[in-house]
């Protein structure tokens, strides 16, 4: 029997050609796909609820993050991209909007460069997965060589918005442990990027919104939002949310949802 978090969403185990994925559906309105970031769905509840005011949110629990079990067939972010592609193809008759958060944005970009027809609009929030700096210039803070307390301060713009891990229960700590292992599996080396992705972003032709936080100290490449916007063919907008760090969806869930809603409602330019 699968273990799923205690939330208000409806969970569905979907068998795909790339494996099983557990998807949580919540909210009301036209569908939108959400791909979580490094910590899985642990701290996403306010953001999902904000999105759900206007959309039926399909949160894909990526294999290996503790809700959907890991699989020997999932060896890299490209495989995670296939899960997203397969889910989208199997569930929707027409192109559907998708949101990717940080590592989820990397997964989304991987899926989108090979499946331009799948997504009507793409939102990449604090995206990682590319490196455009020199070999001795880090693109991202080294998660595994940084004091855990210091790392949390680098991920959030406002320290008061750092989640208190003491509030987690045993099952949530287990999911967090799965999540950290999954990030290591997929992001160890090259560190949090695919060397091929930056040059492939020209194939991402869907209308795309890039969102970053002005206080993101986790991504070390300067002006990385603008850089993504320049690389993605379909990028029509880059929005920087003031005062938030890398975890914009946690620090400003309603503001981010509003930015996304506005983008989704806009007509293609």
């Amino acid at each position, binding site marked *: 029997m699968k273990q799923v978090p205690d939330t208000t969403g409806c969970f569905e185990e979907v068998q795909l050609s790339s494996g099983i994925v557990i998807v949580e559906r919540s909210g009301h309105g036209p569908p939108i796909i959400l791909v979580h970031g490094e910590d899985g769905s642990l701290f996403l509840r306010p953001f999902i609820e904000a999105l759900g005011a206007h959309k039926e949110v399909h949160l894909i629990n990526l294999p290996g993050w503790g809700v959907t079990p890991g699989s020997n067939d999932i060896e890299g972010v490209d495989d995670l991209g296939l899960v997203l592609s397969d889910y989208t193809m199997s569930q929707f008759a027409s192109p559907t909007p998708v949101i990717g958060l940080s590592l989820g944005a990397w997964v989304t970009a991987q899926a989108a460069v090979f499946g331009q027809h799948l997504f009507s609009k793409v939102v990449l929030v604090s995206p990682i997965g590319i490196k455009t700096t020199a070999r001795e210039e880090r693109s991202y803070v*080294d998660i*595994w*060589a*940084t*004091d*855990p307390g210091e790392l949390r301060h680098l991920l959030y713009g406002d320290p008061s918005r750092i989640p*208190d*891990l*003491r509030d*987690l229960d*045993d099952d949530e*700590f*287990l999911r*967090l*442990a*799965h999540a*950290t*292992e999954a*990030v*290591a*599996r997929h992001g*160890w*080396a090259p560190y949090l990027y695919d060397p091929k992705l930056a040059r492939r972003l020209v194939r991402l032709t869907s209308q795309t919104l890039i969102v970053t936080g002005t206080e993101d100290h986790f991504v070390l490449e300067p002006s990385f939002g603008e850089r993504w916007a320049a690389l993605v063919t379909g990028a029509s907008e880059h929005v920087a949310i003031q005062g938030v760090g890398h975890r914009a969806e946690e620090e400003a869930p309603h503001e981010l949802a509003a930015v996304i809603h506005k983008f989704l409602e806009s007509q293609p330019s």
Partner: protein
Amino acid sequence: MFRTWVFTEMPYPFTPPEETYESVRVTLPSRYYDPDTGRDLFHRYYDIYRRADELGLDIMVNEHHSTATCVAPSAPISLGILARETKNARLLALGNPIANRSDPVRVAEEMAMIDVISGGRLEAGLVRGVPMEISAQNSNPVDMKERFWEAADLIVRAWQSHDGPFSWEGKHFHHRQVNIWPRPHQEPSPPVWIPTQTTSTAVEAAERGYTLATILNGTKGCKKIFDAYRERSAELGNTPDSGKFAYLGLVFVGETERDAQAGARRLQWYLQNNKVADQFMSVPGYMDVQARASMLRGAANGIPPQSPLADIVDSSVEELVEAGLFFAGTPDQVVEQVTRFHGEVGGFDHLLAMVQAGTMSASMVNRSMELFAEEVLPRLRHDLPTSSSSRPGTAAMAPIAAGP
């Protein structure tokens, strides 16, 4: 036959005060390393090993990376030196961190060369590596165990294959023309050792029949590891003799109790100088996910991950002796301590003796080794029930030919 393997981690002990740095491993800048001092230290350590050989003791070396606690980053280099410098000692690498190496075939080649130079005196330890090594080696900790065993299987296959190339296209390693030259001196291969602190790896070592070593686990921990190996062997219909078991403890022998205590306290340096930052110990993927969840919960509640040595840092020598981590005293006392430990863990043939740590001089260590070799080891060999098997290759060792 009961054997004693002399060991030093080859530390660089002249580090700044601990409160001035975050971690002695991974991040301590090498500007604190003085190469001239380092040269003297290396010669000290190799002199100790040469003396061990003269005394009829065996030798163990290891390697670590990006750390002042052990400045030997290549066990094969140490063995290469010792293969020429020593005449009789068996030479144990404990070991080659093969899950961190991108090319197991290279490891097979290096070990084979050492085995040939030494005339078949190599004992080849294959080790997964400690979590603190992950960042220093940039080795993905996920699936490390799986990678380790695939590398081990490839290395052993390379040693034992003498009929031209074979192909290996596994999950982690790909070689289409494996055909190592030289082949090892020993047939079918140098003995393989697996060091571990976990029962799961002990079980896997038992399934392959390799020699099992465990390190500073104390009486209870050591017995648990040995028992796991014995039980798995029994399930497979095997009865491993004591030659399959090794234990590493700290060893110092003095002429008087006072001398022994003084030397033992110098040896405690190893336990007390190992400050490691939390992030290098709690590594995702290295450990079972349940254990990691527990570690994350502890950290959230102000309990940082602990070094395996944390519980014994402040222990006295007497307490460490009682726990089975230290064998220290006069020759009579050390005989009694090893004999008691040997009985309590169910027997083992190999005592891995860390004899040097910190700033201990060669003369101090040599005197301890002399007492051990002359007054302790003969009595252990006489008194302890051990296996009758000789080490592979020793019986067949031929004189080294001069010239082509």
